[in-house]
């Protein structure tokens, strides 16, 4: 039923295989510190792309820059292009961005209450999201709100529509946020740790609803998480971020079974609790020495070199991007930036 509202516009903007989201050379800085450097990312329609890395690597900043939600004191340069919208989103006014957000581009963050109005009934909030962006009349919107709450798996959606956010559980609130995000059939959905605060059974349901929601709309998904198993479950392609840079990218199966960047290899080894040896013989887990430095304290050259077991003097210069294979979404979609790539032996 939602196709009627978006079909016409959708046909135009979704034609061809051009990317839904195209980010080129994105930099984000404070007055003193560069926080994101030279981030390239492309997501085609229907594609689900994960962005992983430990805390402090720049994942949330990437999402916020794309959405035009960077806080005071941060400046972004580079290019952010969204299908159906002319020009660089980084150059748009806040008013222009606000119209795009919640319409063509929607988001789900870790804490659902940041997206909900505590004093407004849930159904009205979903309906409002649809009327504000003009995809439905008021009475249509009310009816569709209940449908949407049903689609995202809220038990007794009629009743849930009349509830206030605090009367719902954390998992139910996150579904409401997802319903609002999907309400206008966005071309791009950005999720930042959407299930990190949820219990594992609830997480499974919310992940399913996100995947089903983007699949049925043929939307592009940018899915941020620190959890490798979650990203492997949800996404087809993955970007690995460290020190504000994308250090490796590629199809999930390739990056997770045959990583090239030394950071990716270290991260995978350290997180693999189910590796047979680690469990049964209780041998020590592989670790990455040290910790993620605070912003502005990453080494120049390769950002990982002060923790990297393979580093040499050469790593003091910036490793170039080495494309890997021939990916349809371009050479930044699959490759790595490392002088001494891991390879083969980790299989």
């Amino acid at each position: 039923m939602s196709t009627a509202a978006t079909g016409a516009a959708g046909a135009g903007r979704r034609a061809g295989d051009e990317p839904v989201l195209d980010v080129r050379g994105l930099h984000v800085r404070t007055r003193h510190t560069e926080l994101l450097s030279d981030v390239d990312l492309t997501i085609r329609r229907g594609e689900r792309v994960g962005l992983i890395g430990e805390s402090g690597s720049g994942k949330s900043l990437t999402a916020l820059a794309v959405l035009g939600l960077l806080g005071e004191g941060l400046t972004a340069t580079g290019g952010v292009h969204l299908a159906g919208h002319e020009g660089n989103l980084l150059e748009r006014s806040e008013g222009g961005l606000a119209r795009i957000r919640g319409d063509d581009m929607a988001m789900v963050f870790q804490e659902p209450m940041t997206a909900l109005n505590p004093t407004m009934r849930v159904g009205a909030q979903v309906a409002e999201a649809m009327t504000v962006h003009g995809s439905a009349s008021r009475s249509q919107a009310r009816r569709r709100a209940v449908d949407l709450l049903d689609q995202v798996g809220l038990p007794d959606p009629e009743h849930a529509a009349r509830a206030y956010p605090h009367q719902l559980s954390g998992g139910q609130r996150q579904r409401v946020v997802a319903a609002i995000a999907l309400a206008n059939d966005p071309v791009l959905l950005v999720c930042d740790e959407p299930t990190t605060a949820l219990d594992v059974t609830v997480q499974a349901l919310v992940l399913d609803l996100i995947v089903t929601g983007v699949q049925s709309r043929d939307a592009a998904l940018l899915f941020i998480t620190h959890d490798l198993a979650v990203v492997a479950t949800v996404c087809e392609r993955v970007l690995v971020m460290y020190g504000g840079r994308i250090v490796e990218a590629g199809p999930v199966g390739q990056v997770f079974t045959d990583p090239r960047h030394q950071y990716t290899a270290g991260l995978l080894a350290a997180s693999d609790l189910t590796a047979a040896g680690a469990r049964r013989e209780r041998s020590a887990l592989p670790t990455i020495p040290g910790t993620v430095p605070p912003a502005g304290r990453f080494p120049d050259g390769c950002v990982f070199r002060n923790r990297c077991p393979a580093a040499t003097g050469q790593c003091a210069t910036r490793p170039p991007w080495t494309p890997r294979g021939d990916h349809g979404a371009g050479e930044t979609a699959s490759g790595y930036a490392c002088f001494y790539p891991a390879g083969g032996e980790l299989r």
Partner: protein
Amino acid sequence: MSEVASGEVVRSEAVSSEVPAIRLQDVGRDFRRPRRSLTQAPPVVHAVRGVTLDIERGERFGIVGESGSGKSTLLRMICGLDRPTSGSIEVEGRPIHNQPAARLGWLRHTLQLVFQDPMSSLDPRMRVRDIVAEPLVAQGQGSGAARRARVVELLEAVGLSADSADRYPHQFSGGQRQRISVARALAPGPDILVADEPVSALDVSVRAQVLNLIDDVVDGFDLTLVFVSHDLSVVRHVCDRVAVMRQGEFVEVAPTEQLYADPRHPYTQQLVSAIPDLHAALDGRAAADLARAVRERSPDA
């Protein structure tokens, strides 16, 4: 259970090895919620219900469950920080459930606790040396010089340099702070280490470091470990035997591998099938499969 054998090493001062490290009999804990109306009795939360269990010496025992299932409440009672409303708790054969705090001084030598968030459990105004020595000072153990030497020994045991002693908690990363809390827990030479979500706030690479540390100290100091987590993969890695907690009750207790390979209770089945797993995902298990398993195995269905 051959893994447990190493824990049955006879200790010089020890209680007989027949006595379990921890014995819980029909332990319950109710909380009264604030009264909502004058005519109705205030609602009661049964945070822990009818938990009966022996944890053997040297065992690595895990408790998993979703948030609010009662894990922390149970641990607090085991540590003497809270008292059950019913049932009995013995640590190394001595009852703790009916003792005033003043008579539980001995428990601090026997059992020590590590929390999830080292920042809130470490006093920001204290130097690391005083934090680690605190349990020793509290018990009047050792002279000043002996305590200083002990602090250095403990810091080194957890992989921190001796000069860390002069610094403050905020000067350390999350993983290092968790090392400091482990050093403090080891200070009085406990037999039992209790950990409540000790790696839940840590990044993957640091989590691996802290899990290795816990493994090392449990082995090296011959400890009994009680390890609580909402993360089944972590518990599987760490523990020999696992209890699954739901709504205050243990629904299943089994050796780890058995629990994961052949879960018996519908709730355990649901939990196990909901865990995202990297290898399974690469073999094609999608979000829809996890969700389907959760729906089909709902214990309330």
